[in-house]
């Protein structure tokens, strides 16, 4: 044993993990700032800062000391401590496989690539992004090579965001979804269209009204504008949402509810877990289940709009003055195949994800070349959704994920949709009809239920276990499909 101090192993481990949480806090601010507030010329220096933070975290985490502490902490009785050790071990074993240099290189190049993506997207210039994407892919390949025993390379990536998830399982769920979604989309009814403009300031007021009814508190939350909305929690009681408000449509409201779902999950984690790896949502799909729940199951529900439409309508007298609640609800729920995943309706969304899931596997396998991506993207968009992509900004360049090395992440979005309805059904079984409450602008009972069943646990339970505990079943696409069939019948 080479403990530098005489502290008991559990205390020592917690101290190290708290320090790592602090460094993550700094990294999270560095990232948030680079997307919200950094002057563009600061990007190069910022990439250095982030790379250093990543390297320092990595070095401290993969140390032998952490391994020895974990070894000394087998079989703890306290379930929270045992969960901490379990999760730490999982992450430690993963991190040990990845050389520090590679970890630093990944974060350094991501900082540069995301800036390049920003520019490429603005100019709809895929060619300028190609070298960055090549670099990201190459680094991902090197990362995957650190896990030679995993037969399916894509599993390595998937498991990082969704513990225990396999490509085969995703494939099975997605196949089932595709079977149902394609005909569902084909059978779609024509729906009324909303025509703007919707002045940005009025939209921002609407966003605030909804957030406040959901439980947003300016003492601990903030919301900003970014091209690509996201949520982030640098530290305990500091929740940051972003949205993108465009006067041409009302998507900002839905993206705000979406990010609220991510934010509230993090916000409601038990404070006693702060500064530990348990103080975060348990997986990407569980996280997404919450953003989709607040965006869709709440935010596109009839009850919600019974409450909110009378408040929204007067904010946009020109655009909505003559639109009644029913037409509005139909307009914001309609199935409308489009180019942009972030704007997609509940039915077509899944196909956007399936397309990315397929392309990612093909890129990794080398069966699709990066330079051919736009063409393949566009032709599949046509196959799946029947739309003609006008340019790469509305096509292959629309998402930032690949620029920051997020491969294997997209599937979790769709798994989140699936899980959201599984949880929703359970909540309704416990709470009865929620729509009545929503119609009065009351969302507290739902949030309370979610806090109690999902949020407060943070990462104490792995995603599968959490889902099983709450719903009594495993990942199951049927409730989600049933929800869509009912909604779009």
């Amino acid at each position, binding site marked *: 044993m080479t403990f530098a101090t005489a502290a008991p192993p559990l205390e020592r481990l917690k101290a190290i993990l708290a320090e790592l949480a*602090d460094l993550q*806090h*700094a*990294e999270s601010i560095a990232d948030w700032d680079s997307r919200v507030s950094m002057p563009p010329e*600061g990007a190069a220096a910022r990439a250095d800062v982030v790379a250093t933070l990543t390297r320092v975290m990595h070095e401290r985490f993969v140390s032998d000391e952490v391994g020895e502490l974990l070894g000394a902490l087998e079989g703890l009785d306290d379930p929270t401590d045992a969960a901490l050790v379990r999760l730490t071990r999982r992450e430690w074993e993963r991190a040990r496989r990845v050389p520090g240099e590679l970890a630093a290189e990944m974060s350094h190049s991501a900082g540069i690539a995301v800036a390049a993506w920003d520019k490429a997207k603005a100019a709809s210039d895929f060619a300028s992004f190609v070298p960055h994407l090549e670099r990201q892919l190459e680094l991902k390949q090197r990362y995957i090579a650190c896990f030679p025993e995993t037969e399916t390379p894509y599993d390595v990536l998937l498991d990082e965001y969704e513990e225990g998830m396999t490509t085969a399982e995703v494939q099975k769920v997605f196949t089932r979804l595709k079977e149902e979604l394609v005909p569902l989309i084909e059978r779609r009814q024509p729906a009324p269209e909303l025509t703007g403009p919707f002045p940005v300031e009025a939209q921002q007021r609407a966003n605030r009204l909804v957030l406040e009814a959901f439980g947003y508190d300016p003492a*601990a939350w903030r919301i900003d504008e970014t091209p690509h909305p996201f949520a982030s929690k640098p*530290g305990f009681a*500091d929740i940051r949402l972003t949205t993108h408000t465009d006067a041409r449509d009302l998507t900002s409201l839905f993206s705000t509810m979406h990010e609220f779902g991510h934010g509230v999950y993090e916000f409601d984690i038990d404070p006693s877990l702060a*500064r530990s790896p348990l103080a975060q949502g348990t997986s990407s799909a569980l996280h997404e289940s919450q953003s989709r729940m607040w965006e869709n199951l709440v935010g596109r529900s009839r009850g919600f709009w019974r409450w909110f439409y009378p408040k929204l309508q007067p904010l946009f007298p020109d655009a909505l003055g003559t639109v009644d609640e029913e037409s509005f609800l139909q307009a914001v729920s309609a199935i409308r195949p489009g180019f942009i995943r972030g704007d997609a309706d509940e039915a077509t969304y899944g196909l956007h994800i399936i397309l990315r899931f397929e392309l990612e596997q093909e890129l990794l396998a080398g069966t699709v070349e990066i330079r051919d991506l736009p063409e393949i993207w566009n032709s599949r968009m046509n196959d799946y959704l029947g739309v003609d992509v006008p340019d790469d900004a509305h096509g292959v360049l629309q998402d930032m994920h690949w620029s920051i090395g997020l491969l294997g992440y997209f599937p979790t979005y769709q798994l989140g949709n699936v899980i959201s309805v599984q949880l929703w059904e359970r909540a309704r079984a416990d709470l009865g009809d929620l729509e009545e409450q929503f119609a009065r602008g009351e969302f507290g009972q739902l949030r309370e239920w979610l806090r109690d069943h999902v949020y407060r646990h943070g990462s104490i339970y792995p995603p599968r276990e959490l889902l099983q505990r709450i719903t009594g079943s495993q990942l199951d696409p049927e409730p989600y499909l049933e929800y869509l069939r009912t909604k779009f019948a």
Partner: protein
Amino acid sequence: MTASPFERLQERLAEVDDLAKAATLLLWDQRVMMPPAGALARAEALATVSRLAQDRFTDDEVGRLLEELRGLEESSDEDSFEASVIRVTRRQYEKATRVPSELVGETRRAAALGLSAWNQAKEQSDFSQLRPHLEELLELRRRYVECFAPPDQTYHLLLDDYEPHMKTAEVRQIFAELKHELVPLIAEIREAGDVDDSFLHGAFDPAVQRALALEILTAFGYSAEEWRLDETPHPFMTSPGTGDIRLTTNFRAHDITSLFATMHEFGHGVYEWGVDRSFARTPLASGVSLGLHESQSRTWENLVGRSRPFWRWFYPRVQKAFAAQLGDVGEEAFYRAVNRVHPSLIRIDADEVTYNLHIILRFELEQGLIEGRLAVADLPDAWNARMNEYFGLDVPDDARGVLQDMHWAGGSLGYFPTYALGNVMSVQIWRRALEDLGDLDERFERGEFADLREWLRSHLYVLGAKLTPQETVERVTGSRIDAKPYVGYLREKLAPQVA
């Protein structure tokens, strides 16, 4: 392939600098962006990041490398990058290794909590909320001083953090000279009769002020590619990375002091902006001292921003933007109003002359605090008594008295003197610039400031922290720090004209 000792040192310094930049950003975010409830977690994060930066810098490996590099330092030209990096690193290393990293982390943490408490204490004008934090910070500062032997020069050691190699005795002497010259000057000005500045108080739309501030900044050299401007109760400048300069200002609806605060912060920003970029991620990559930093903020705020030619250029725009307030006010009357000398409660609103007395007051009080002659609990009374003595003013509440500045709440003791030293140096440097550039008035009248900025960049800013502050002043001006040019400037500009 193994890296040379110098490359290894550079690598280590880059890492330390990156961590310091992360801490800088955390602080900026705390003051500009963070929801208030995040303060607790932020204090932890700041403490950890700064402790790690300190640990990595004070690591024995750095000491070994510095030893190994003695030969290279001696054989290199003193002005070379290598010799400068080694020299400056050695100086900082010797100072830093005296201080345990726990103390550094604890101090950062206490400072973060102190700043949060100050915000609320100031808002509610309630000194008692800040008091325990000040007491803790004072104790931590004393422990800091105790890391150095001999402990007799307590205040000097704190001052040295901000103004390396500046002696308390030297400051006392400069301040004595200022007091000696300024007190009678203030009396002369008072006897000559007050200047009307009533039109500077009224309704000034903050959004319009922001547009004007950005117009001035753009003429000075600000661009959105490398800079940003936000609002905070207390204006400041920070740079969390090369090519990333952040100013804050305070747009107040009832006056236009934000324009001066903005020019002030620009001066700090442009100094950082102009540092030789090849110094990035080394200890050379910043302004050399707070005094020199302040010389630049005061240059842009006062020597430029309160000059006649500046207002010849800019007053028509301000007048037009605030026609209701300023429609009938002529340029000369405006110029005199923004240069009005008048004792007042708030340091940052003070005119060029009385400002120095605000500093001298703080300099005296903080010496008392750190030497144990003054208890924190007695600070408000001591403050108010001196305000009465020096300015003849009664402080109505602590928000406008001892709570007005954030410095002590953030653990910055020994910092204030650098403000007045900056005033002094600003005029020394300015005189030298004018010798090279000739009369700048016509250029300012056309809104052209690039020649001045470029001179300052190439003579001062570019040096970064390569030389000591005294060496820097000597390199730029050819003489040591000297109060006479400053006093001469104030007399020439502000003494009543003898008919």
